[in-house]
Structure formats: C-alpha cells, structure tokens
C-alpha cells in the first residue's frame, strides 16, 4: 500500500468534544417554538377488530389539541400505511389490531403530561379474534390469517414467492441451493442432525425512537432518530403525496442504532399529528414502547450436515422458520440473509436452504446487527463442532479443511470471497491458545462471512473553500460507528489537506447527498468510495480552474498535496479558487457509486466474522464466566484502527448479551419482559477478564485503500462460540440460546445422565 498520511491512523473522533461535554444534540433534545406533544394509545389486545374508539373524554381533557386515529388518515386521503418492501404497516391501526401494543390512537396536547393524562381516557372497544404467537403455529392449517389481503409491493428486495404466491401467514420465503442433496446424504460417512433456537431480541439503542415534525410552507420537515433518512423520506412522501424534494428528514446524532433504527418507526404518526394540528409535534417513546415498536426475529432451525470420513462437507440442509411479527417491515431481507448466512463460508457440494418467516400477533420484527447471521450461525457452526467430536478431528482443523479460499465463490455467480479465512482462523486460534489447557475452562470459536453492504447506491459531495478547507456532504448517518471521522480521514487523504480542515455535514435529506442506507456495515466501503470519487471530481475541477487562470494546457497541471503543481511550482486550492473567481468562490466535487465496476458483483463485499472466547462455568449455579474474548477484524485495511476495534468490541459484547442473557419472552399474548429491568443487557460485570482485538489487513476489500466493512461480524459467531465451548466442556451441545444459568444447569445434569445413565 502507498504511504498514507491520515488513513490508517487512529485519529480522534470528530464528535469527541461534543459527546463528552453533553453538547451533542440528538433528535430527542430538539424543540421548536409552539411545539405540541404526542402520546400513543396502544392496543390492549393481540388480535382484534376495533369496534369503536371513543375519544370524547380525551378530546375534552385540558390541553388536548387533537386525538387522532387511523380513520382520520384514511378520511383525509393520506396513504395510511408504510413499509419499504410491502405497504402493510398502518401508521395507526385501521379497523383491526394485530399485536398487543400496536398504536391505535395518538393524543396531541400542549404538554407531554397533558397528552399522557388524556391518553388514559381514550376508550377502545374490541371484538377479539383468534391469536397466534408462535411462528410454527402460524404456518399450521387453520391458523388465523393475519393478512388476508396483502399490502402493495413497493420494493422487491428479498421477495421470492415461488409458484402461486405466498401461503397463509408466510411473510417471506427464501431458497438457496445447488447439487444433488439426496445423493450426497446417501454417500455420507457421518450425518449430524439437530434443531437449534435463537432468541427474539431487543436491540436497546439507549435513545428510544422519537421524532419532531412540522410543515414549513407546505414542505414536511422531520427530525428523528432514524438511521436511513432517505428510506424514511420515501415513506413520508408516499404518505402525504408529496414530491421527494418537499420532504426533509434529518437525523442529528443518533443514540444507538444497531439496525433497530433502520426504516420508518414513529415518523409517520408524528408527521400525521403535525398535519392535522398545524403545530410542530414531538413524539418521544419510552423504552417499553420502543420494545413494542421493533424487535429481531427469533429462529427455529432444523439442520443436517453430511461429512466424509476425513471431515469434508458433502452437503448441508437447513429448514428455517422465523417469527416475523405482525407486519412485513424488513423481514424479507432478514429472511433471505438468514438463508444466505446459515451454511457458513465452506465448500459445500450440495446445499438446500429453505427459510420462511411467519406473520404472528407479536411485535413486528425488523433489522438488528448482523441480521440473519447470528440466527443461522449457531446451527451451521455448532454442527461443525458436533461433527468434529464424532469424527475425532480437531474443530479448527475440520473448519480448515472446508473453508472457502480467497477468490473462491461461496455462492455461484456471486462475488468471490475477498478474505483469507484460513489465516484469520489460525490467528484467532493462536490468540485464544487453542485448544486450551486450563482445567475447567473451555474455548469456543467460529467464523462467518456475511453478504454485506446492501445495494451499493451512494453519493457524496465535497466543497473546497477559498481557504483550502473542505466540507463533506454525506447522507450516511453518524450512529456512533464513527462515520464522520472515517469519511473525513478519506477526504484529508485524497485531497492532501489537514484533517482539522475537514468539516462533515450529514444526515439531513434537505442538505446532503443521497445515501441509500446506513447499515449492513457499508459506510466505510461504499460511502467511502463515493467520497473518494467526489474528491477526485473536485481535484479535476481545480485543475480546470488552474489551467484556465494560468493559461496552460490542462495536461501540464498535476495534483499536489492540498492543491496543484505546474511547471515546478505549487498552488493551494484556495489560491487557484480565488484567482479564478477574482474574489471568494469555491469548488464543488460530486461522487457517485452504483452497482457497476468494483461493485458490479453482489454482494459489494463479504463481512467476516472470526471471533471466539474462553469460559468457565459454576457447576452449582450454571453461571457462565467469560475469561477471554478475542476478535479478528478482517477489514482489508483499517482506515481508523481504534474505530474498528470499537466496532468489534461492541458487536462481540452484543453477541454475548444474546448468548448469555437476552431474550424477549411472550407470556400468553403479551411480552413478559418489555423493560430493561427484566430484559437484561450486558453490564460492566459481564466484561470478560481479558479482551483482545486483532486486525487482519490484506488490502482485499472493495472500499477505499482495500478496506471493507466491520461492525457486525465479530458478534455473529459469539452465540455459536458460547454453545460450542459449553459442548466441549460437558460433552452435550446446547441447541438453544441464551445459555441462561438455568439452561446451563440443566445441560450439566443432561450430560451427567448421558455419562452415567
């Protein structure tokens, strides 16, 4: 790699001072004069027809401006549904509710307290309908049909209906496969077979969903906690029949995303409140309400894997059922990613995956960090460990024999693997001191390769000012991942200017350039490439101005750090700009990337997961203690190593939460633990004794300087690693996460029974 000045250094975060002094503003902190406040009235039934909504008492309550229901939206001719794939999610319930906690009405009042008091007075009468909570029950004959009439299709991503359309309650189906499965299983020396369960999770981004909406001379302006501001813009434009240009969605700093703030959440109802009251309206959800807004999909996976005597995979077969909840939201993508990510980065001669996601009367499921990967990984990776035991082969060696090599295809016709997984795994095993020698401790590890990056549409703009400082405009949202810092480093590197001279404007569709999404670990790789292109365009323009001003041929002008060089002398950008304009002025560069050239083949890159841990268990209580946690960040090139470590650390810890504690539990028709007292996320006491983050930099990514994404991978393998370590310790592999003390205690008893029947 060429020498770089700024890229490759752990430059301090651009948002550092703002965030440590309390000056950083999040959507929840914003207010405007005349702002009213909204409170959501939620369904107390899991599935019911709405017979009536009596809002008289609430409307007469002090301070109340308006009580809104779904009928108001329908009556006003608005599009009362949202959804980026299927338009089936009502902004406020229409005629029917499909989960306990669904928004039924919105009370808007002068103060939040007045709205909350009036919300208690809204009387809804229901006619109850049969309820289905479990995904497999929902697919059975005779199950209540949640969506007799399907919503309009507005996006094609992840939809694969097959012949005759989707059966009752099937929200999405994905099929992946090749080779002669029956033949492969018939020839197998060993077949490992089992059922695996991954829990329903809540991402707990600490800033709950919130929005502030108002109309400004007919334009809709929304500030919110959204990750994908451009996706939200599209939903709002459709809802109010406005051109995209007249809807402005802005996300200032976002208090945690992890995928949970992808796509529209509360923006539609807040904008509706502004529309009907003529006032700016603020809607702040509580954490409990956030849990009732979005969760991740639980998965039940039936899997079998066929091996030769020497541990080569012959075939894999996965049947996956996931719980989509009440509406489509992002389920088609989650479902198809689960299908693509379950079988692992291995050479598999014959494969069959069928993944189905079912509508149920539960909180709608959508994105959460690595979606699909952690769910499938536990089945795919555990079967490698189970086979290793049965065949008497070391589990690391068994993986080595099957891993796809660099440049090899994981899936026919898709991007060849842009990573060296064998080397990554060697590195991980060595750091964990595999196979481990300490009595009572056990190591578990795993690998994954996720088709990451989403659809590679991105644009960026840079303005070079007359003092040679630069402003970058990007539609990528700062969620904490450090996009403002990394993208500024790319600008400084490309234009040869000081990092301190680069400002970043992001997250406001009224100001910044188009970005499809901020997710799928794409910002450094895909947005980063758009930023590079914008810088190159700006440099081209500066050369043009210089040629014009100096009256020389453009070919005689070359790039120099922070400016241009001509005939042995150098001129800074500012000098060129001021000379051309005569006074003041600036240069604007625009960059765009699309599904072409470096990103022609999908996925835009593979995100590698290569992490593991060592644990010990208190055999009396079943309590797990993590002694070591190690991640290998195979990111091609770390533009900011400290930020990569931060992503790996955060993803791995979130993975540990799901592996050890976290699970949303339905008790009958409602959630038993919709709060962070009963839903336990990792705390300081969960910090492993020793944490090591390694980097693997081979310049093999499709992003700037050979970089590729991070942020999900390190967490994807953690659930499987915990289960694998427990299996190696006790001789029985747990097939269900989280590995709570009770489940581990039972596992130990099962293992004893198995040993001494």
């Amino acid at each position, binding site marked *: 790699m060429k020498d770089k000045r700024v890229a490759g250094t*752990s430059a*301090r*975060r651009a*948002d*550092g*001072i*703002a*965030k*440590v*002094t*309390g*000056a*950083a*503003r*999040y959507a*929840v*902190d914003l207010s405007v004069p005349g702002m009213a406040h909204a409170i959501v009235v939620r369904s107390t039934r899991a599935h019911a027809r709405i017979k009536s909504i009596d809002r008289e008492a609430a409307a007469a309550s002090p301070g109340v401006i308006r009580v809104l229901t779904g009928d108001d939206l329908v009556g006003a001719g608005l599009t009362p549904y949202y959804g980026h794939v299927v338009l089936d999610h009502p902004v406020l319930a229409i005629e029917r509710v499909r989960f306990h906690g669904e928004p039924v009405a919105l009370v808007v009042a002068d103060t939040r307290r007045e709205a909350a008091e009036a919300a208690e007075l809204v009387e809804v009468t229901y006619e109850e309908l049969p309820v289905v909570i479990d995904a497999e029950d929902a697919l059975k004959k005779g199950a209540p049909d949640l969506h007799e009439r399907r919503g309009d299709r507005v996006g094609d991503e992840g939809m694969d209906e097959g012949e005759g359309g989707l059966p009752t309650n099937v929200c999405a189906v994905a099929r992946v496969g090749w080779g002669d499965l029956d033949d492969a299983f018939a020839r197998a020396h060993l077949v490992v077979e089992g059922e695996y369960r991954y829990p329903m999770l809540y*991402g*707990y*981004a*600490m*800033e*709950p969903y919130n929005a502030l909406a108002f109309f400004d001379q007919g334009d809709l302006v929304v500030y919110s906690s959204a990750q994908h501001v451009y996706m939200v813009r599209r939903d709002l434009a459709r809802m109010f029949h406005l051109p995209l240009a007249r809807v402005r969605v802005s996300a200032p*700093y*976002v*208090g*945690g*995303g*992890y995928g949970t703030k992808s796509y529209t959440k509360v923006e539609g109802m807040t904008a509706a409140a502004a529309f009907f009251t003529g006032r700016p309206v603020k809607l702040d959800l*509580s*954490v409990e309400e956030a849990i009732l807004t979005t969760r991740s999909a639980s998965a039940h996976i039936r899997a079998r894997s066929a091996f030769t005597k020497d541990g080569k995979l012959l075939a894999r077969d996965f049947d996956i059922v996931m719980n989509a909840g009440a509406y489509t939201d992002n389920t088609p993508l989650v479902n198809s990613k689960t299908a693509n990510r379950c079988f692992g980065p291995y050479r598999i001669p014959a494969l069959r995956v069928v993944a189905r996601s079912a509508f149920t009367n539960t909180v709608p499921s959508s994105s959460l960090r690595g979606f699909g990967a952690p769910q499938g990984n536990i089945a795919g990776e555990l079967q490698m460990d189970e086979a290793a035991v049965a065949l008497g082969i070391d589990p690391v060696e068994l993986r080595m024999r099957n891993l796809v090599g660099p440049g090899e295809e994981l899936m026919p016709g898709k991007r060849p693997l842009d990573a060296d997984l064998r080397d990554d795994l060697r590195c991980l095993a060595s750091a964990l001191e595999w196979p481990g020698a300490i009595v009572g401790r056990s190591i578990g590890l795993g690998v994954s390769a996720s088709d990451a990056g989403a659809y590679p549409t991105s644009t960026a703009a840079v303005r070079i000012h007359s003092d040679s400082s630069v402003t970058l405009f990007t539609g990528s949202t700062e*969620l*904490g*991942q*450090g996009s403002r810092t990394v993208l500024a480093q790319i600008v400084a590197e490309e234009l040869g200017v000081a990092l301190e001279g680069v400002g970043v404007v992001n997250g406001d569709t009224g100001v910044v350039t188009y970005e499809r999404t901020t997710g799928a670990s794409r910002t450094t790789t895909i947005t980063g490439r758009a930023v590079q292109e914008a810088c190159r365009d700006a440099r081209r323009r500066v050369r043009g101005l210089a040629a014009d001003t100096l009256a020389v041929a453009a070919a005689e002008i070359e790039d120099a750090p922070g400016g241009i060089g001509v005939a042995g002398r150098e001129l800074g950008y500012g000098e060129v700009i001021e000379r051309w304009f005569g006074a003041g002025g600036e240069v604007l560069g625009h960059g765009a990337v699309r599904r072409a050239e470096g990103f022609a083949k999908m996925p835009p890159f593979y995100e590698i997961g290569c992490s593991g841990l060592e644990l010990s268990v208190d055999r009396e209580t079943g309590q797990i203690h993590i002694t070591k946690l190690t991640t290998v960040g195979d990111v091609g090139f770390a533009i900011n190593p*400290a*930020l990569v*470590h*931060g992503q790996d*650390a*955060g993803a*791995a*810890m*979130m993975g540990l939460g799901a592996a050890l504690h976290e699970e949303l539990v339905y008790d009958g028709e409602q959630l038993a633990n919709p*709060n*962070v*007292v009963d839903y336990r*996320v*990792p*705390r*300081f*006491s*969960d*910090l492993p004794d020793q*944490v090591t983050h390694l980097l693997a930099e081979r310049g093999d990514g499709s992003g700037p300087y050979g970089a590729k994404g991070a942020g999900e991978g390190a967490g994807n393998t953690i659930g499987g690693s915990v289960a694998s370590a427990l299996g190696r310790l006790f001789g029985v592999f747990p097939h269900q996460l989280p590995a709570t003390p009770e489940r581990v205690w039972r596992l130990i008893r099962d293992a004893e029974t198995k040993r001494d029947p």
Partner: protein
Amino acid sequence: MGKREIRLRLNGGDRRVEIEDQMLLIELVRSLGLVGTKLSCDAQVCGACTVLLDGRPVSSCTTLAIEADGKPVVTIEGLADGAKLHPLQQAFIDRFAFQCGYCTPGMIVSAKALLDARPAPDAAEVRHWMEGNICRCTGYQTIVDAVLDAAEHLRSAR
C-alpha cells in the same frame, strides 16, 4: 398541582426556579437547557440520567426536583473548566470510550463520583462502581481504561 420555588447551586451557579411538585430532576435540568443529561430506561437501571446531587450520583429520572432544594447539582455540562476538558472527558476521547455518546454524560458523571470518593481505584473497583451505567456500544473495556487513565492523570496533577 402545587408549585413552589426552590434554590439550588447548579453547576456552580446559584439558581432560583419555580417547579411543580411532581417535577423530576431530569425534567428540571433539561428544562433549563442542560440537555446533556439523557433519559433512557426511566427505571433507575441504565445510569444515562446520572447527575451529582450533593456530591452523590443519582438517577435524575427517579429523583424529584424538589430534593435538589438547597443543594448543589452537577451535570455533564458542569465538568469542563471553560474550554479545558475535565481529565475524564479527555480520557474518554483519547481511549475511544464512547460511540453513540448517549450514555456518555451519565457515564462520565458516575466516574467523577468514583474518582472524588476513591482517587486510586483498580480496574475491579471501576467495574464494580460503574455497574449501574449501561453502554450498548463499546463493550465497556475502553471505558474502564479511560477511567483508570483519568485517575492517574488527576493524581499526578495533584
């Protein structure tokens, strides 16, 4: 609804404010423009809303504003000395001890209470003291490192 006037010393300045009886401390400080203090769990488990009341860390989401009557209150906005960051703030930047930053004000205020009480904690003490603060982004290690760094800095500056 009863209203009354309270006096408090907020980030070093004397304030007289009229409050409603049921007003929470977080509502009070945020209504005065100090929105660095963040609401999250609303149940006293996450620590995002931590402020110092009479030198002790409290969850301002479950503390009545009236309890601050006659007492000093310190929020995240009260830590820096003008443009000069508190050593904890500088250490959080240098150690990359935050990402989204939403938990950071409460985290830093809690850590300040620790270092006020125990100027030379070890890593285990930091982890134990900070158990009441949740961070969903960092995985905690960098926060422990930052608090230890700041403690050392404060000791050597003494």
